[in-house]
């Protein structure tokens, strides 16, 4: 089968990571996405707004993450008695009930993973943007794509909705300040990851190194 690239001429070589088709690329224009003509996978993206947008969004995400973890998340009220929880509280509850393994998975997917992903993305984009070749930039950048699927903020939000419905019949539920910050965090981090393409950053790091 012969595959023709959808955006032709030439400077860098790119091989599709899903079907191994080989392409030659001219640098993309901002906002452009190059897809494989063979299997349709995204080969390269040049996010609109450049690195400044990514930095702004990741800084916002980091602040929202702090807010989301600093205040009560949900409050449950049954006959005058209140029970408050934070996001971290979900992991702690599992740990206290003797489910340590489960607590670790929940901790990684809802607290540690997001914190690591957001702060390292911010660090890397900042490092490339400032043309300061800060230490660990390459190591962090190579972790980011592996970490991304384990950050499950959106899935956790669906879990919150289900918990709401399940408890709604027998108790009154109050939404805490953190929940609003959390919803904001999901939206902002989605926008941030759209403004961030690891392969593009690798290319930019490469130019910096050569020049």
């Amino acid at each position, binding site marked *: *089968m012969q595959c023709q690239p959808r955006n032709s001429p030439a400077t860098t070589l790119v091989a599709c*990571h899903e079907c191994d088709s080989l392409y030659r690329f001219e640098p993309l224009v901002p906002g452009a996405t190059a897809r494989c003509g063979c299997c349709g996978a995204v080969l390269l993206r040049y996010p609109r707004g450049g690195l400044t947008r990514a930095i702004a969004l990741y800084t916002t995400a980091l602040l929202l993450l702090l807010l989301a973890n600093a205040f009560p998340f949900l409050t449950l009220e049954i006959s005058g008695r209140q029970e408050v929880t934070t996001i971290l509280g979900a992991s702690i509850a*599992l740990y206290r009930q003797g489910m340590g393994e489960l607590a670790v998975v929940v901790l990684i997917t809802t607290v540690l993973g997001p914190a690591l992903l957001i702060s390292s993305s911010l660090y890397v984009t900042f490092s490339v943007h400032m043309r300061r070749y800060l230490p660990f930039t390459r190591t962090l950048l190579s972790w980011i794509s592996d970490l991304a699927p384990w950050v499950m903020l959106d899935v956790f939000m669906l879990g919150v909705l289900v918990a709401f419905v399940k408890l709604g019949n027998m108790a009154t539920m109050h939404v805490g300040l953190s929940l609003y910050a959390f919803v904001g965090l999901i939206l902002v981090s989605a926008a941030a990851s759209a403004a961030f393409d690891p392969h593009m950053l690798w290319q930019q790091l*490469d130019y910096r190194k050569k020049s």
Partner: protein
Amino acid sequence: MRARDFGLASCHTCGLVVKLPAVGHVHCPRCASPVHSRKVNSLSTSWALLLAAMIAYVPANLFPVMSVVSFGKRQSDTILSGVIYLFVHGDWPLALIVFVASVLVPLLKMIALTYLLVTVQRKSYLRHQQRTRLYRIVELVGRWSMVDIFVVALLAALVNIGNLATIEPGAGAIAFTTVVVLTMLAAANFDPRLIWDHQGEK
């Protein structure tokens, strides 16, 4: 035109296209990670993780994921009975989402991965595009199965009111998380480029 035909390989970490040596292996000059034409031992690793997930799927559905202890009375829920409870007491759109995320997705994901692994091993030269798309969907939706575990964690954190009511996570929750994590790892270890490696031969 495929990278392998030219003795080239794309670095898995940074995407740089690197010339592979005839013998031995090479490290990416840009990010220093080892470069391979295909993921190493992709099929056997995926199979191992997938089979382990299939085994864990049995206790995940048989054992309760959580128990409500209220006034000394204990009521246990499995994944399936939790979904049924939502259908009966909650609103059905939410129940449908949970049914898809925690019953359909894990099951279809294991079937899809088995199909992908078997067709690659039998050197199938059919439907490359559809199989690649199937792989992409499997990779994308897998994480949503964790929703039930988050519900259990949240309920356990919120409902802990002395002897009025306590919610305890059950053994099924650990088995179910194992299924989700193992299938995610199996999908990550599968190399979709293998699907395209048998197009000319018959």
